[in-house]
């Protein structure tokens, strides 16, 4: 089973992603900030990371920079409420950018494209 790390500071969204991605057949670990995410990455191996941009503490971009220093091979999806950040070149280090939407279809599709089912 492919393992996904979700970094999202909103509790309810964290829960939603966890449940929905599990239902789609992935093993999901969800954390609420960048430091917890780095800790998880240090501990275990993940096939994919999904991160928000705006979070307390380190933001998503800073998190990606840190991950790049540790592991360059894990694909990263940015999942943000800001449509406009998509054009921001700092976000280009990620493998995909999905704007948050009430339907998780696009997110699931991108995950499938990057790591398969």
């Amino acid at each position, binding site marked *: 089973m492919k393992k996904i790390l979700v970094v999202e500071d909103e509790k309810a969204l964290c829960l939603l992603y966890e449940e929905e991605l599990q239902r789609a057949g992935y093993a999901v670990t969800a954390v609420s900030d960048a430091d917890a995410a780095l800790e998880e990455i240090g501990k275990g191996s993940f096939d994919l990371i999904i991160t928000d941009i705006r979070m307390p503490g380190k933001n998503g971009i800073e998190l990606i920079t840190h991950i790049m220093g540790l592991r360059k091979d894990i694909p990263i999806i940015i999942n943000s*409420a800001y449509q*406009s950040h998509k054009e921001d070149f700092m976000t280009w280090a990620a493998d995909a950018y999905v704007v948050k939407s009430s339907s998780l279809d696009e997110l699931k599709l991108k995950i499938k494209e990057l790591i398969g089912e």
Partner: protein
Amino acid sequence: MIEKYSFLTADFQKDAPKEMMLLSIISQSFFQPFSLEDNLLVILTALTSGSGVGFNRAMLFLKDGDRLRGEMWLGPSTPEEAGYIWEVLSTPGIGYVEIIEHNRALVSKDENTLSRRMKNLVFTLDEKTCAQFPARAACHREIYLVREASNDPQVDPRFLALVQVDEFLCIPLVAQDEVFGEIVLDNAFTRVPISPGDIKLAGLCGLIASNYIYSTTLHKRLLDAEKMAAMGEMAMFVTHQLRNPLVTIGGFTDQLLLPEGVSDEKRERNLRIIHDEIARLEGIVYQMGHFLKVSMKEPVYFDVAPAIEAVLRSPEVQARGREYSLTVKIEPCLPQVLCDPTSFGEVLRNLLHNAFDATPPGGTVSVRAYRKNSTSFVLSVGDTGKGISNPDKGQLFQPFFTTKEKGMGLGLPFIKRVMDTCGGQIQVRSRVGKGALFKLIFQSREGSQRS
């Protein structure tokens, strides 16, 4: 010896040189907060008032897209009216304001004014009309004096039928390489020939008018651009604020609608999450409506002590204050303070919540209220929280700037608006890691001596 002079001369001296008068009238217009139209009226007034350059009539055309449109025509309609007006205008003690008032009434009068008659005069700035006067002056960006107009095929016949003069002067309004319009001047009643001196002065007026139109237009464009930028920022922020709760509501609703169904327990949980997110959306909508409201209430003098106490005693402040060491020092016999009382309460409540948000539980939040002097009063809220970094300091009062996870960035801009409305001041002192102090200085007066 040092002497002080005023920029504005109180009235017009009849024997002053024309150039002086002209400069005096026009320069005064820039001291008044009048509209573009009013200030153009001033320039036309300067050109036609007996004590100014002294043309009988002045016509203003403004460029509107690719057309030159008749906008304003100043001057008497008959020789009798002319005599009367010039008499009024040269009355000693008649000042700028009176003349403008007089001319404004003249311009806005119904039916038989000249302005109304020239509004139908529109020239397309194309090859045909540009070959004819008066539009040709604007096209070529040159001053033209037209004589023996009735015999000249280069003069537009409609224009000639309206003005019925043989001699007129065309001054194009050009600034920064852009045509803004044209002024046409004549001496329809006195029939005095237009002199080279008059042309020079009228040209000067044209330059001033065009630069004035240019800077006003530029200013308006800048304001519009700023507004657009602010709106863009706001739209981006609102999008973000609304999207998270919407995604949550949408996602958990979809779970409820799954064909395989959900357990009662999960249904209950999802509905609760949806309920909470809707409450959050309501909060966002409330804050947007509340803090961004267009008008502020008029400030009044009110007893400040009970207003402060009411906020400090309110259940939400009491509840949050329990986690902190809340120290309150309110001077006895506080004065009456100038502010809208409701806004004052909201300002204090906002400052307190900011202090609580910035300070870890167990820290100190202090409220002080005291007289600064006999006409000013200070309300301060301090905390021992995380403080404000230097880059953040510059943006504190900008709408939608926030360092809080779920803040809207509307509290401090609201406080600034309240303080601006009542003529107060805000001082902020802070050191990162040590805390912050917000000091609000209000105008005050000695009022009822309740403690």
